[in-house]
């Protein structure tokens, strides 16, 4: 039962990184200095999916609270600066995207676009640092609380933050090649291919920094799995680059989506059976079973999830199906 809920938590957080990831990628690409109409076109390419994307985060945190209450408290409070940055980023992006076209002036819209860029930057860096914090272990004391927040400030956390940032930008560019009209997509392709190489380099660099850090080596319960998944991640990025070269944006998008989901799997599998590994006292480390809510709560939520999950995924799939294909002149413009 705990494993099923842990998998579900992973599914929703990975889903958020994949879907929210291209929101932030597209948001970051607004900084390219292209003209106002292209910026608006890019945001409306995300258009109908935007509201449905960010709620994967809300659902993930809901599952975290309902099924893993102890983990929720210690993970969020123990990674305070990273979560704070990510949260501010999420707020800025959600407000920026939805409000940017409500004022009329080009200047006000430009200002909102800068808000979206900053928000996307903070969100990508924040979640990257939080994932790195899990991989390098946390100073969990015997009383069950995380001591201080300075444990987050390491080269590995910085490298991972930058890697997730590079991943989201490359993913966002790939999304735009898939969703924008053909002419625009052709112009974006070389940029997307360069960004995919950058992301592969950034991920490799983070992996090397991680492997050379004592804390990460001591924390990893299954280092081999971690390395294997990191290799897979880089391979997915390179595969996306090849697919873009062959004008297969759909395949490329599947590959970058896999790349965005893999960090969550990597963290979960490398730390298993633990979820928070203590750098202070081995006995204080928290396993997935320790972190889970007690039996009656999980059973109650389980009965609810059985009918609900198909509905949640079904309505999301309905949204993707209705608004599939490239944007064209017939698509409503609202953002």
């Amino acid at each position: 039962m705990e494993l099923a809920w842990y998998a579900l938590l992973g599914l929703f957080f990975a889903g958020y990184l994949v879907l929210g990831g291209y929101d932030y990628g597209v948001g970051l690409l607004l900084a390219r200095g292209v003209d106002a109409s292209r910026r608006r076109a890019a945001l409306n390419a995300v258009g109908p999916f935007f509201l449905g994307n960010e709620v994967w985060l809300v659902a993930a945190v809901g599952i975290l609270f309902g099924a893993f209450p102890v983990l929720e408290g210690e993970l969020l409070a123990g990674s305070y600066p990273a979560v704070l940055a990510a949260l501010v980023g999420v707020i800025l992006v959600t407000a920026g995207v939805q409000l940017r076209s409500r004022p009329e002036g080009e200047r006000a819209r430009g200002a909102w676009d800068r808000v979206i860029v900053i928000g996307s930057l903070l969100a990508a860096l924040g979640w990257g640092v939080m994932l790195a914090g899990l991989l390098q272990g946390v100073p969990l004391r015997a009383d069950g609380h995380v001591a201080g927040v300075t444990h987050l400030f390491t080269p590995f956390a910085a490298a991972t933050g930058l890697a997730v940032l590079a991943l989201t930008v490359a993913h966002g560019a790939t999304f735009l090649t898939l969703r924008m009209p053909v002419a625009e997509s052709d112009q974006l392709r070389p940029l997307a291919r360069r960004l995919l190489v950058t992301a592969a380099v950034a991920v490799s660099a983070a992996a090397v920094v991680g492997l050379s850090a004592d804390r990460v080596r001591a924390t990893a319960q299954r280092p081999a799995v971690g390395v294997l998944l990191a290799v897979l991640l880089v391979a997915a990025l390179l595969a996306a680059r090849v697919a873009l070269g062959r004008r297969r944006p759909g395949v490329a998008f599947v590959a970058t989506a896999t790349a965005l989901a893999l960090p969550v799997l990597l963290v979960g599998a490398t730390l298993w059976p633990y979820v928070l590994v203590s750098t202070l006292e081995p006995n204080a480390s928290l396993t997935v079973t320790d972190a889970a809510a007690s039996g009656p709560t999980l059973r109650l939520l389980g009965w609810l999830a059985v009918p609900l999950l198909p509905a949640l995924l079904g309505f999301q799939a309905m949204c993707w199906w209705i608004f599939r294909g490239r944007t064209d002149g017939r698509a409503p413009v609202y953002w």
Partner: protein
Amino acid sequence: MDTLLLARLQFATTASVHFLFVAVTLGLVTLLVGMQTAWVVTGNQRWERSTRFWGQLYVINYVLGIATGIVMEFQFGLNWSGLSRYVGNVFGAPLAIETLVAFFLESTFLGMWIFGWHRLRRGVHLALLYGVAITAYASAFWIMVANSWLQNPVGYEVRDGVAHLTDFSALLTNPALWTALGHVVSAALLTGGLLMAAISAWHLSRRTPDFALFRSSLRIGVVTAAVAISLVQGFGFAQFGPVGGAQPTKFGGTSPQAEALIADWTARFGPGDYLPPTLSSVGLGFMILIGFTLGLLWLFVPLLWRDWIIRLRFPLWLLILALPLPFVALILGWIAREVGRQPWVAYGLLPVDQAVSPISPWLMGTSLVGFTLLLGALAVTNWVLLARHAARGAADPALGRPPAQPPADDPRPEPAFA
């Protein structure tokens, strides 16, 4: 400044801002459902334009509801990690259900509704709005289940210092739940109705060319607000019995039950101040005063006959002036409910000082100042945008604009692919 006080201030600030926006969301979406249904059934274009105009205001308002809602959700883990540690097994369940059943689906539906104009069949498009409304009510329900559990913990047993769920149905029959839910939902309807009435009144007072549209909106708003204020008052007074029974210390004053409870707490948790600050009951008094004042909304209903409400003009101005009242009352009522359970997070079970996260006051202070400035700035910006779009009128809202039509609010034409 200690961490606890800063954390409480942050919760109060975020919850207050959140409440101002979600009340409008819940109230307006109910009226929107009626308008879009009327449009689909009658085919009358005026209802389509009404849906677009009020829908656009609804969507702008929704932005801050969702932004503050996300902060609220994270805040439990960030600032109140003891809450999830000691009572998360019980309190977490309704919150998890709320995010999955309500929040997740509400946003998914709304995204499709916004971008579905001119693209989806009318019935499907209407069904999406029904989905948004139903999930909004589900959201209010599950949040109130969670909040009522904090007011009056039920259906649990404590083993090794941690609360475990024993009877989920007790959470749904919590005496602190149903009258409070009725009170909050009717307060949201009152706010939505009065907002619609006041904006329509403003346009009518300026002799808008869009007379027919704003006349019907005014009538809907006034009738909704009048019915809602009676429900607010009814549920409000009906609450004193069950809530006072469950929380004898809530409304100040001393009663034998309150004294017995405080003696029990002193024995179990040690001596301390177990009475809530007077601030909460003073606020409650003002809220009741506002509630009675708004009861006068019924005087506007007979004036709808032969449009006397518009022809006399001053009733329009009174409606505009009354607009801030439900918002002030919302905050005061919320303070009475939340501050009234001090010094407990979960009444009689978990004191606030055991629930707050063990982080430094500096970090908590930074977070408080940062989020207060951020959410405050966003809230003000949002209200300015709402006011501007409300003032612009229903001629050509961006929401639901046909894709072929060049946007009148854009300084230059969009490229074809936008």
